């Protein structure tokens, strides 16, 4: 143990590179985005003009911003619910004794690893009315077609399902890991006492999974809130602003309309929302290590 007591500065050199990188790409920009939101900066100009709260005043007065908030909330929470329930079911299914467990577990990771760009552009073809396979199936079964990405009512549910399909493996793997830590004896004891599948689930599995589910819920909520590729590459926020969530609005305002200051203000509002959610999570919902039952 002798080497362990000496805390030399040289030791810090090992973790310096990763810390510098985190500081440069995550921490500094987070502070900077707040500062930029008080300036009127156009794309291309180096220096902006300090305008105080003007960017915020402008944004709060725009109906398109409030519509965006609404879309963001619907998108985030509907995705969250699906992305908690479906992986739970999948993990319970895959936790059974199965043939080819390794192959199955590897295969279910597929949606998670394939690049979203490739999926999104191919999906545009598959979802197209009169051309894609999904509408072909609909036409042959119920005799009608849906303009999945092109109609205001269908775009949101369609993209929520697509996004859920992409994120499923993460939650499934996480819950599966947690399930495998529950000793089989507990279930055997419960079966001896005559508990059926549902009772076992509600009284054993669910309470023991609580911690993992809250952790996953938090991660998935933040990821959904930040989704960009899935939406931008399929509908660019349309049709008619219905999919214009905050990240899409930030991107459009900053890099399509070239008003960086206003984009930064919208980004800051999003960041504040996430910080509030984060603080609430760690204060009230975060698993406490000592009062585990």
């Amino acid at each position, binding site marked *: 143990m002798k080497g362990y007591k000496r*805390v030399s500065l040289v*030791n810090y050199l090992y973790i310096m590179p990763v810390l510098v990188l985190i500081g440069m790409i995550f921490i500094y920009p987070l502070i900077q985005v707040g500062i*930029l939101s008080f300036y009127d900066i156009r794309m291309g100009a180096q220096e902006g003009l300090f305008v105080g709260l003007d960017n915020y005043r402008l944004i709060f007065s725009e109906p398109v911003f409030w519509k965006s908030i609404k879309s963001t909330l619907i998108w985030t929470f509907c995705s969250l619910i699906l992305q908690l329930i479906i992986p739970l079911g999948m993990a319970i299914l895959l936790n059974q004794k199965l043939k080819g467990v390794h192959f199955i577990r590897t295969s279910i990771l*597929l949606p998670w690893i394939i690049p979203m760009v*490739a999926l999104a552009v*191919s999906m545009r073809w598959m979802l197209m009315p009169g*051309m894609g396979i999904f509408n072909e199936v609909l036409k042959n079964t119920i005799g009608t077609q849906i303009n999945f990405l092109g109609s205001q009512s269908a775009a949101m549910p369609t993209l929520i399902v697509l996004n859920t399909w992409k994120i499923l493996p993460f939650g499934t793997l996480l819950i599966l890991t947690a399930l495998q830590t529950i000793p089989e004896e507990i279930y055997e004891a419960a079966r001896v006492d005559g508990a059926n599948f549902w009772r076992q689930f509600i009284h054993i599995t669910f309470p023991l999974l609580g911690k993992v589910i809250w952790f996953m819920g938090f991660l998935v909520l933040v990821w959904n809130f930040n989704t960009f590729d899935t939406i931008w590459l399929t509908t660019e926020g349309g049709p008619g602003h219905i999919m214009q969530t905050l990240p899409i609005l930030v991107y459009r305002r*900053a890099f399509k309309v070239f008003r*960086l200051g206003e984009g930064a203000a919208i980004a*800051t509002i999003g960041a504040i929302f996430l910080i509030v959610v984060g603080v609430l999570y760690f204060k009230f919902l975060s698993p406490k290590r000592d009062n585990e039952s």
Partner: protein
Amino acid sequence: MGTKRIKNLLTNVGVIALLLIILFPVAYIFVSSFKPLSELIMTGTGFFPQKPTLANYTSLIFVRTPIRNFPVFLLNSLKVSIGTALFSVLIASLGGYGLARHQYVGRDILAQSMLFIYVFPTVLLLIPIYKMFQSLKLIDTHLGLIIIYTALSAPFCTWLLTSFFKTIPLELEEAASIDGASKMTIFLKITFPLAASGIVTVAVYSFIIAWGEYMFASILLSSSKNRTATLGLATLTAEQYIEWGPLLAGSILIILPVIVLFFPVAKQFIKGFMGGALKQ
């Protein structure tokens, strides 16, 4: 025993249904990338191509214009992804080794915060990163992308490698140090090779992150000769008349390397991920 058999049957049906849902889109994109245009734009032509053709691939590769130069885009992606993998391995193995072997003030918090980075909203950081890269003259360079992608993957890689290095017995290093080996020699000759499977996993993970990224590439790369493959593919859809065939072929060319690289290390990745997740 009857109920048990029914339960088994239901489980198997469930697993098969699940695999179909998971595998169908990619399988369908793959077979469709060999279909001629007439089959792509008409319904009722079936799952498999009736007249299989390589035309979509040849058109994508050989019909080139400055804004539609897919072979160059693929090479750009390869360059950026390999760069990212190298930097990530270097930075994460140093960081992981440091966190596993040395005592720091707040070491546990540091190790935990490696994962906390992943709740950072990257979209919201786009504007300041753009401004910063403007003053660093990194706009429209591949180096700029490599820096961002390394930052995106290095924290997770560091965290994964920390647990790998912890499994290597300290005695091995101590023995070498008694024999007079320097710290750098110990790290390069003993620890690094023993953590090889972890290092390969990390390299593949960071390669995949860089290979599939779109958002940062779309704002940082301005000239068409510098485009990465994801960006090139996305711009195909922006044209007036979308050529679905080359688009599907391009999707497959982007998906395939990821699958080929990932599946050999999948077991290792799941193990690392599960081992780490349990400690949370």
